[in-house]
């Protein structure tokens, strides 16, 4: 395969000026500055149609790398090559002029992002629809709510048709429902063969969206490879090795959880779903030796609070796991969750003990896109009626 993005020895240096108190005239004319390398020795390739995740702690250089890739600022050393039309999925509301209407601003920010006026005109309805601003398109954006403003800014970028797409922290934009819509759009582009570089704090989303990943630490590449392995490395790093999910089973751990995936009705891997969609949660296990009386469970937590909402479990009498790769599948007919972000966890334990043999946590994120407008997390199925208190209840 051929690459679309290639970095060779890329580095970015910032001059940090020390500002000690100036005592003498000489100090005034000899400004002391030192070099700070935000990125150093960055070398990687992204193949055409691949999705590369970039993870790492705050200040590791993730966003700087994206700025270099999108030419916002130039590298201090090395060379970057990009093939094809590049676009960044960013919120461009900052380019809006408050006195102009939504329509005029869409043309303005669309052309700033590199679209042609003709393309924008053709997609105008779709953009308004995506942003959910409907009839407000011809109203000056100064009358918009802040949510509408941000959504419209993002919707413009979401309608680009790039060969190479850069995504930085899409999960920081708008409400959870809008974020899910953006992720759906990224998935669509991925299916159409776009090359994607994806930055997110949420490991669960990176692991679902990306095939490969790079772990940045203090401006350098600390790990590179299969997204699952890199996420494992990172998780081990931030938890001082407490979390050891993934990898091979061993004497102490006869069963290892290798993945917890989500597939939609069509059997495609996803991380976005709608309320009441059918969905399958698939737990992949690597079994070292015959293991009878096992129980496998998948839990769904709210993302923000970490509250356990529900769980699926194999029967209480236990199942027998055969050596080799096994998959436990939980099929949900209608997903009973409201729009929002959820994190999935899993454990495998013996029937007679609560102590897990292996667990999986914080690596599978589910974004629920659209559904009934209600508060809370659960899409409760119900009927309602209205009647006089004295009369017998008529059901509707």
């Amino acid at each position, binding site marked *: 395969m051929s690459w*679309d993005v290639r970095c060779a020895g890329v580095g970015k240096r910032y001059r940090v000026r020390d500002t000690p108190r100036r005592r003498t005239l000489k100090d005034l004319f000899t400004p002391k500055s030192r070099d700070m390398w935000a990125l150093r020795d960055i070398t990687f390739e992204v193949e055409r149609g691949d999705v590369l995740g970039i993870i790492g702690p705050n200040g590791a250089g993730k966003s700087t790398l994206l700025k270099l890739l999108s030419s*916002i600022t*130039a590298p201090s050393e090395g060379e970057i090559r990009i*093939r094809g039309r590049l676009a*960044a999925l960013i919120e*461009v509301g900052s*380019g809006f002029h408050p006195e102009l209407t939504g329509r005029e601003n869409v*043309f303005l920010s669309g052309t700033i992002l590199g679209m042609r006026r003709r393309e924008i005109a053709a997609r105008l309805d779709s953009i308004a629809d995506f942003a959910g601003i409907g009839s407000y398109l011809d109203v000056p954006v100064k009358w918009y709510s802040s949510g509408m403003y941000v959504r419209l800014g993002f919707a413009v970028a979401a309608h680009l048709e790039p*060969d190479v797409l850069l995504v930085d922290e899409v999960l920081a934009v708008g409400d959870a429902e809008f974020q899910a819509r953006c992720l759906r759009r990224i998935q669509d582009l991925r299916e159409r063969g776009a090359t994607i570089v994806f930055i997110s704090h949420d490991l669960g989303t990176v692991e679902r969206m990306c095939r490969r990943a790079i772990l940045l630490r203090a401006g350098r590449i600390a790990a590179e490879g299969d997204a699952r392995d890199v996420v494992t490395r990172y998780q081990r790093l931030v938890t001082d090795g407490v979390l050891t999910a993934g990898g091979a089973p061993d004497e102490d751990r006869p069963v290892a959880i290798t993945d917890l995936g989500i597939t939609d009705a069509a059997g495609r891997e996803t991380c976005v779903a709608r309320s009441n969609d059918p969905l399958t949660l698939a737990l992949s296990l690597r079994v070292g030796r015959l293991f009878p009386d096992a129980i496998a469970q998948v839990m769904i937590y709210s993302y923000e609070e970490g509250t356990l909402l529900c769980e699926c479990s194999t029967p209480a009498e236990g199942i027998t796991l055969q050596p080799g790769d096994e998959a436990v599948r939980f099929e949900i007919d209608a997903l009973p969750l409201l729009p929002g972000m959820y994190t999935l966890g899993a454990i495998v334990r013996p029937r007679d003990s609560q102590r897990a043999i292996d667990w999986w946590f914080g690596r599978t994120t589910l974004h629920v896109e659209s559904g009934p407008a209600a508060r809370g997390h659960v899409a409760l199925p119900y009927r309602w009626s209205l009647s006089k208190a004295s009369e017998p209840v008529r059901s509707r």
Partner: protein
Amino acid sequence: MPTPPSTSATAELAPGLPDRRRERVIRPPAFSLGAPFRSLGSLKDHGDLFYTLTLHRIRVRYKQSLLGPAWAVLQPLATMGVLTVVFSYIARMPTGDVPYALFALAGLVPWIAFSNAVTTSTQSLVSHAQLVTRVYFPREIVPLTYVCAALVDGAITGVLLLLLMAYYGVAPDASVWLALPILLLLAALMTGVALAAAATNVRFRDVGVAIPIVLQMFLFASPIAYPLDTVPARVMDLYILNPLVGIIENFRRVMLDTGPLHGPSLAVTVIWVVVLLPAAYAWFKQVEATAADVV
């Protein structure tokens, strides 16, 4: 675009289907006089942005103001009025048989375009910091659209001038067509100054502060309120080093038919433009590469 060093990958990709994608190479910035020519090529990909942003400037300019677009007319008229009161009632300025108001307005047409362009474009990169740090597009588009908007201001003043000429019964003769190359020279000068000022202001905000003062000095150091003939001969050589002299004086001469072209000042302006424009563009492109780090 240059082919990558490892051509094997490209060859592999394209059995039957040629890879039409353009390859872009990003390297550390280096000052190069060739940069303007390379970036002119990429500018044409952004024609739609240029058009939309220029339209935007003109539309937004007088929004939420009571008098709206009338300001484009009031601004030159007010300046003309002030100059007329000072130099034709208080002090007498010899302007031959040309009414002073007409004389002043003819000088103001290029001046208003120039000073509006410089004032607005100096702050342009800094005031667009939000965009500059988030999206890439050729940054020169931002100051250049201000130059275009200022040219529209100049054109409006030009229409006023024609109306005033009709009022005083001053008919232009054949030499009026020479105004076009002179205005072209003005546009080139505005572009050069705008690019240099915008780029420099990213690093040194002093420029933004100094520009109004400098413009005020140039208003009096250019033959706007007075004719070139009144400048003492011993400072003339120094005086015509100001590139605006050649433009303003000659524009007025061809419009109002007050004499033949003044060659020396025009030659100085041409030299200025030929040197300044490419140098300013190259400087701009170098600053642009890391502008997002400092705005």
